[in-house]
């Protein structure tokens, strides 16, 4: 038991509540989308599968194809190149360089990234799509392949606000979540007892308060870890690294990059042969014990070309590895720490731990499922916390409006997320720009939810309508996928596309649960009724 004076407890409770209520709606959106984004790879495989299943590791026998495609790219656009997998297990091969633009008078203008992106079927090693153009066009093509997963990930990472501002916003939200977790930990005076206490025979508000405390207490360590690592990811690149480059290296970015990522080899633009990628990947697999999933290279077809091969963590290791090879001969050069520095260090290990701790991808689907469940509990805690806060003040008109706002976001966001795949599949079927189609579906759902929140008789009705609509919307998602040309269950199962079948089942189960909540009511519903005011006095007394 943590001993605090009554006054100090009140102060901490005020910080806990106000930190949540001020930015809680955005925080709730970040948690909800983050919970879904845990399964971003599976969402990509479910929403845009190939005819046959493919793994997220690099396939074999790719050297002839890579050599052929690389030779087809202008050497000026081969400064960097990447091999990686995307939605459905598609193999992506990307070349990038710089394009010097000219102004009207023929003078050299600003440089922009320009390149070529190949989308390849890893089973047949045939090119499915080729995109050439500036960086924005390549980005759009890349996002089309994994459109649905990217939509949720972007919403989670930066709320679709342009960088670096989006990262600042989500970083601050992570800080707020940390404060809420820390103050929540301190104000829970009876931590162990509150893990198991729910007063079933008491007023609805007290029951809901107990449910909020139980879910919050069980997930406290997880909430802290997620908020901490999330803030790190938001601020590390937008605030931390620029500050380090400025302070430690006096603004010399080249020196900063050399210190952190290693000195680049001496420049030698003599044309040279290209390494055997299959041999390099096989050697990296033999050295690390894991099949590589990413290759980053520079100066394709030049004497100074190098390849960095990334492999995932093997059992017993906290992080993956990234051996470096000559891009000409394929000779192994040295073993580089996966993130920063030129040799193993405590700093690299700590930085590399942030990813697995935030994404929950350290033990396959099992750890992802645990992270999903804990994220779901976090969303529940955020929503019920805001509902409790607003309902304790339900006698004041301003807080009644706030309560409607909380209901709009709390129940409207899941509806908007459930409708987003309709945009994905409609876009793919009709040939529309998929990102725009997804935004249209998401936006229409959000607007419809807002209208319902404004005109409904009570907040209980808002909740009922939105939960029911979300249930029906989820039930229709597999059918829409099928109508848009996706494989049926028999075809998917016999073809080994188990993710497609599993994804449909999970979505249908989600729809049934929503309809059950709507039909029979549960959890927070009673909080929102007029009975809350009377109970609120007891709860706060």
């Amino acid at each position, binding site marked *: 038991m943590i001993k605090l004076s009554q006054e*100090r407890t009140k*102060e*901490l409770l005020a*910080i806990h509540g106000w930190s949540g209520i001020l930015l809680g709606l955005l925080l709730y959106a970040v948690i909800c989308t983050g919970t879904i984004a845990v399964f971003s790879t599976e969402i990509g495989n479910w929403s845009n599968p190939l005819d046959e299943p493919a793994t997220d590791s690099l396939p074999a026998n790719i050297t002839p194809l890579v050599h052929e495609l690389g030779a087809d790219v202008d050497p000026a656009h081969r400064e960097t190149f990447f091999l990686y997998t995307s939605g459905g297990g598609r193999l992506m091969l990307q070349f990038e360089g710089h394009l010097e633009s000219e102004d009207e008078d023929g003078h050299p203008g600003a440089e922009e990234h320009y390149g070529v992106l190949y989308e390849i079927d890893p089973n047949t090693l045939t090119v499915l799509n080729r995109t050439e153009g500036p960086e924005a066009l390549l980005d759009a093509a890349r996002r089309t392949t994994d459109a649905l997963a990217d939509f949720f990930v972007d919403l989670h990472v930066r709320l679709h606000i342009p960088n670096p501002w989006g990262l600042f916003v989500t*970083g601050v939200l*992570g*800080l707020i979540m*940390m*404060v809420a977790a*820390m*103050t929540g930990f301190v104000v829970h005076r009876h931590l162990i007892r509150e893990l198991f206490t729910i007063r079933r025979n008491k007023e609805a508000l007290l029951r809901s308060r107990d449910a909020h405390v139980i879910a919050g207490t069980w997930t406290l360590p997880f909430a802290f870890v997620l*908020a*901490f690592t999330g*803030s*790190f990811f938001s*601020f*590390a690149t937008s*605030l*931390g*690294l620029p*500050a*380090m480059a*400025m*302070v*430690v290296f*006096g603004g010399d970015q080249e020196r900063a990059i050399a*210190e*952190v990522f290693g000195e680049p080899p001496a420049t030698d633009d003599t044309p040279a042969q290209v390494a055997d990628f299959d041999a390099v990947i096989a050697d990296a697999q033999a050295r690390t014990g894991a099949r590589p999933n990413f290759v980053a290279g520079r100066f394709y077809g030049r004497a100074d070309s190098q390849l960095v091969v990334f492999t995932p963590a093997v059992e017993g290791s906290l992080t993956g590895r990234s051996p470096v090879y000559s891009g000409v001969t394929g000779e192994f050069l040295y073993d580089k*720490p996966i993130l*920063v*520095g*030129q*040799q*193993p*260090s*405590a*700093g*690299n290990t*700590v*930085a590399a731990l*942030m990813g697995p701790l935030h994404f929950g991808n350290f033990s396959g689907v099992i750890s992802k499922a645990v992270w999903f469940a804990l994220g779901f509990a976090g969303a529940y805690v955020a929503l019920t916390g805001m509902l409790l806060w607003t309902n304790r003040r339900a006698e004041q008109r301003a807080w009644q409006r706030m309560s409607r706002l909380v209901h709009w976001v709390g129940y409207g966001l899941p509806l908007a997320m459930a409708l987003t795949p309709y945009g994905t599949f409609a876009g793919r079927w009709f040939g529309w720009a998929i990102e725009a189609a997804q935004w249209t579906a998401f936006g229409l759902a959000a607007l419809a939810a807002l209208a319902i929140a404004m005109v409904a008789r009570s907040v209980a009705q808002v909740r009922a309508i939105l939960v029911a609509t979300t249930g029906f919307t989820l039930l229709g998602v597999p059918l829409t996928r099928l109508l848009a040309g996706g494989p049926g269950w028999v075809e998917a199962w016999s073809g080994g596309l188990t993710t497609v079948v599993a994804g449909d089942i999970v979505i249908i189960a989600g729809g049934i649960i929503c309809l059950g909540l709507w039909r029979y009511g549960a959890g927070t519903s009673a909080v929102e009724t007029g009975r809350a005011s009377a109970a609120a006095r007891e709860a706060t007394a």
Partner: protein
Amino acid sequence: MTTTTVDTSTAPGKPRLRAWMRGVLAGPLAFIASWILMAGAALYLPKGAAGIDNMVFPVVLFPLIWALLFLYSLLDRRLLRAYGVVMLLLAVHGGLIARHLAGAGA
């Protein structure tokens, strides 16, 4: 303690002013202080075997530094002392950075 009671009961404008001052301290000032502390700490923390620990640890710990400064700013009953602590951290690390940059530029 007595002074605080007299302040808040006799001057209705002061509690609001104090609340704003505390909000400014816990919000923007604590954030800026954490940022400067993060950048300045890279100048005195050990570099480690790979020469990067002094840069990585402050960046990793930045969220925790901010959360602690935020909570401290809100919970220290003596607002002036809270301002003093935050400004001291800001000044020390800002001074370290300025000295380093001036030395590098010289």
